[in-house]
């Protein structure tokens, strides 16, 4: 079996030789044109006049398109049809595309796009959370509220309380390959689009709408992206659609890629949040009740903000059984870039809210935050982790009516793994001893302070939009036994294609080299969901398995009949098909089946069972299962400058029965560093006019090689998945992102060594934030 083996990424050899082809590397036919956007310079206003004569006069410019030139739909929204591709009279943020230049070269198009003379009538811009609340500028009619029990009463009766407000910054995806698309016009008005997208079916849908053709006239292909992280779930629509419109108009291939600065200015980011909290608890830190008010800055268009904000609410319990909870969520409409999906999809913001509360509680009571965390954990039910110790009895239900292990949205937590993971990680990371050593260090050192923190992760797996939990696959076996595999998932570096190829190889009992991985293609598998919500291998692995099993059964039936044996006696293993005493190589079996007129091609389909969810009421089972993990991070800060670094990180993460441990550990490591980056160095700064001032790596700092923790111990938890997922594996794309929260908590711990007050750090904890917090704590504010 090739599953569970640490085989290399399928394209590894292409990557190390520089021959892996991304959209911008595809050789283009002669005459290919290039597209660039002219962008709004103000945050909100009506366009009074747009003079594009100078733009048109630049040598090489072939065509300039405005909203009036769009032949059919002028919309690139993935949800509410509220996102015109080219501005229609009003601009809503700095950077909004107003017109498109089509030119003979990338540079000519970009240069010309800067020459538009636009006169605006400026309108008041709503930029901040406060301004949006004051103006009641929001999506949906009012805030969403999910609740369990009576939080206010429980907090009122509790012997201790904490109250606070917490600002959480946005995050740029910084996929190293920027957005790109290439449209190739075909005969009869058809269009082929190569798009760097996590969601080819949506690109197909939006292009078809824009061209006024049925979806069958558009084929979208993507072999690989240079990183996605959610930033290519909907943000590629604009490029693909404008290329297709320009290609249709000129009947020439059209290509567009954003320059990095444009990419950062135009495209949506992780939502910035403000979270207000109030919690009541006992002497031991057991939470009786908690209230959250979450404010999400969604930007000017809806995009995916509603499900993002929902997921933030759905993760405001993280690993903790909350007797009484109330979560209120405001989805605010602002004149800023339309925020979008980003690894974790709101989950990280919700999760860091409750982690902040627990940290604050522990600080107030003078307890080790780890003890407070463990005391508030969900209980482990029977049939939990294989090697996990059994927990103590679950905490008493406070109202007497609720089930014992229920989330604030009514889902039973049946697979809780964190008791065992926590114990094992505290041991392997030597937490107790290091915590004591850090206390000693801090007592002796005035300038450099150290901190350590543990953080657990419980992350819900499934699209909360239930219908998206489906996938298709197409598998062909050729007469020589080689296999062509296709599914709706997209490859963005995460190793999905390799993992699913290992599934296909395992089903046929053949080496993985016999399976050809092919580009995602809307012409092969239709109506796919985005490769998002960590669902890639869960959904597509199962769909490919179904397709392979169909073909396998056909071959088995054919050979069993020939040898007058039961079908169950036919085995596929070690590259062979064994039928009683007769051994065929897989290639021979395929050839025989072909000669016997057996169909060797099949589709496969999968839909996630058990999920059912009412997002308005906030009740149901949005998640098929949960993925778990935990991390311990140690940091040092310079109290004079606020400079800080991660000294050591230990991680234990639950990938179920991993399909490929090397790839999964790679996901865990990368996610942790990206999560820590979100909470430490990555700061997006907008000025008072709504302009993004950090729009390049010169000013926006993602972690660099030099930032890697000196000691970085990452292991996978030896567990399974109690639900029937593909080979009992678990999704691994997003959950480990939130392991980075321990870096933030460790910084808070280091700052708290400077005085008695709670540090109340905001995120990202940049050097400036840390320095400010040190002063706050030293002055006892």
């Amino acid at each position, binding site marked *: 079996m090739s599953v569970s083996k640490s085989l290399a990424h399928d394209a590894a050899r292409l990557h*190390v030789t520089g021959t892996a082809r991304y959209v911008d590397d595809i*050789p283009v036919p002669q005459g290919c044109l290039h597209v660039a956007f002219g962008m709004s310079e103000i945050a909100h206003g009506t366009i009074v006049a747009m003079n594009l004569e100078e733009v048109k006069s630049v040598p090489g410019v072939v065509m300039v398109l405005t909203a009036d030139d769009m032949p059919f739909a002028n919309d690139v929204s993935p949800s509410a049809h509220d996102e015109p591709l080219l501005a229609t009279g009003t601009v809503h943020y700095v950077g909004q595309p107003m017109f498109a230049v089509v030119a003979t070269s990338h540079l000519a198009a970009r240069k010309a796009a800067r020459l538009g003379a636009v006169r605006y009538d400026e309108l008041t811009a709503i930029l901040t959370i406060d301004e949006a609340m004051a103006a009641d500028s929001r999506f949906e009619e009012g805030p969403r509220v999910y609740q369990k029990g009576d939080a206010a009463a429980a907090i009122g009766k509790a012997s201790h309380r904490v109250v606070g407000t917490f600002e959480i910054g946005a995050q740029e995806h910084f996929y190293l390959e920027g957005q790109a698309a290439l449209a190739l016009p075909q005969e009869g008005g058809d269009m082929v689009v190569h798009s760097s997208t996590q969601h080819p079916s949506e690109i197909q849908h939006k292009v078809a709408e824009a061209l006024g053709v049925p979806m069958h006239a558009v084929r979208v292909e993507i072999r690989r992206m240079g990183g996605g992280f959610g930033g290519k779930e909907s943000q590629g629509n604009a490029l693909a659609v404008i290329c297709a419109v320009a290609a249709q108009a000129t009947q020439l291939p059209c290509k567009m890629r954003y320059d990095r600065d444009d990419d950062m200015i135009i495209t949506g980011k992780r939502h910035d949040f403000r979270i207000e909290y109030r919690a009541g608890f006992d002497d031991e830190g057991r939470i009786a009740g908690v209230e959250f008010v979450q404010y999400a800055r969604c930007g000017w268009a809806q995009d995916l903000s509603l499900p993002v904000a929902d997921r933030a609410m759905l993760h405001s319990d993280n690993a903790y059984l909350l007797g009484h909870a109330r979560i209120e969520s405001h989805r605010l409409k602002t004149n800023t870039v339309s925020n979008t999906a980003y690894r974790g999809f709101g989950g990280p913001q919700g999760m860091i809210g409750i982690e902040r509360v627990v940290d604050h509680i522990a600080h107030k009571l003078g307890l080790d935050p780890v003890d407070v965390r463990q005391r508030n954990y969900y209980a482990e039910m029977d049939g939990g982790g294989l090697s996990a110790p059994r927990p103590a009895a679950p905490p008493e239900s406070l109202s007497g009516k609720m089930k014992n292990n229920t989330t604030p949205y009514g889902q039973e937590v049946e697979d809780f793994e964190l008791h065992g993971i926590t114990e094992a990680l505290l041991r392997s990371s030597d937490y107790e001893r290091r915590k004591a050593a850090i206390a000693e260090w801090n007592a002796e050192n005035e300038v450099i302070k150290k901190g350590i923190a543990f953080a657990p992760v419980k992350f819900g797996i499934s699209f909360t939009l239930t219908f998206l939990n489906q996938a298709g696959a197409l598998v062909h076996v050729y007469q020589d036994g080689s296999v062509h595999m296709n599914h709706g998932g997209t490859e963005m570096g995460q190793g999905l294609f390799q993992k699913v190829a290992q599934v296909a190889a395992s089903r046929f009992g053949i080496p993985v080299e016999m399976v050809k991985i092919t580009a995602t293609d809307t012409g092969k598998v239709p109506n796919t969901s985005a490769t998002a919500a960590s669902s890639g291998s869960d959904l597509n692995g199962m769909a490919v398995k179904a397709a392979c099993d169909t073909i396998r059964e056909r071959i088995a039936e054919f050979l069993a009949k020939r040898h007058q044996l039961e079908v169950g006696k036919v085995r596929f293993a070690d590259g062979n098909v064994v039928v009683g005493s007769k051994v065929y190589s897989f290639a021979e079996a395929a050839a025989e089946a072909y000669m016997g007129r057996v169909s060797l091609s099949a589709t496969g389909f999968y839909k996630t069972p058990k999920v059912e969810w009412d997002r308005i009421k906030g009740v149901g089972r949005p998640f098929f299962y949960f993925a778990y993990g935990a991390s311990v991070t140690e940091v040092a800060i310079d109290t004079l400058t606020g400079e800080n670094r991660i000294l050591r990180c230990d991680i234990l993460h639950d990938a179920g029965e991993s399909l490929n441990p090397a790839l999964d550990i790679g996901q865990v490591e990368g996610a942790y560093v990206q999560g820590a980056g979100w909470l430490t160095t990555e700061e997006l700064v907008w000025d008072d006019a709504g302009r993004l001032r950090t729009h390049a790596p010169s000013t926006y700092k*993602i972690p660099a090689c030099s930032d890697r923790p000196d000691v970085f111990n990452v292991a996978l938890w030896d567990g399974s998945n109690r639900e029937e997922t593909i080979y009992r594996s678990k999704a691994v794309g997003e959950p480990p992102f939130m392991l980075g929260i321990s870096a933030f908590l460790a910084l808070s711990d280091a700052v708290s060594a400077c005085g008695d007050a709670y540090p109340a750090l905001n995120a990202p904890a940049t050097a400036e934030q840390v320095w400010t917090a040190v002063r706050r704590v030293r002055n006892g504010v």
Partner: protein
Amino acid sequence: MSKIHVTTSVNGDAVEFLCDPRETLLDVLRDRLGLTGAKEGCGTGDCGACTITLDGRVVCSCLVLGAEAEGREVGTIEGIANGEELHPLQRKFIEHAALQCGICTPGILVATKALLEKNPDPTETEVRYWLAGNLCRCTGYDKIIRAVMDTAAELRSESKELS
């Protein structure tokens, strides 16, 4: 605008091309010479995705003009393997799973190869800071460092055997 005629060497092969005076060496490599291994990550010399060598020195090709290649020796990712035979660095990156989306990989390999030619026995810290100009958004760098350290050790033991 009249074009400039440039005579240079790329990965040991004599190459001539015509380019716009303002055209970057990165664009020349990608658009005129079909060598798309070097990528444009930022266009401002901050991310390292376009890393190549010029007379053995590591440079961001997005900050070099095509015309500046005149009479120089250009080294790119495409020249690291010996035909079908991978350079040990390439092998180790595969073995250690030191890549994910792969966009930063060519730049990191070119930069690392230059480091190991200069300093065959770097400390981990030296590697970390040498590669600090090559951003990777996927891996978290751990496996990259491991692959580099392992390659350095292998190359040292090979050169010992030879001497």
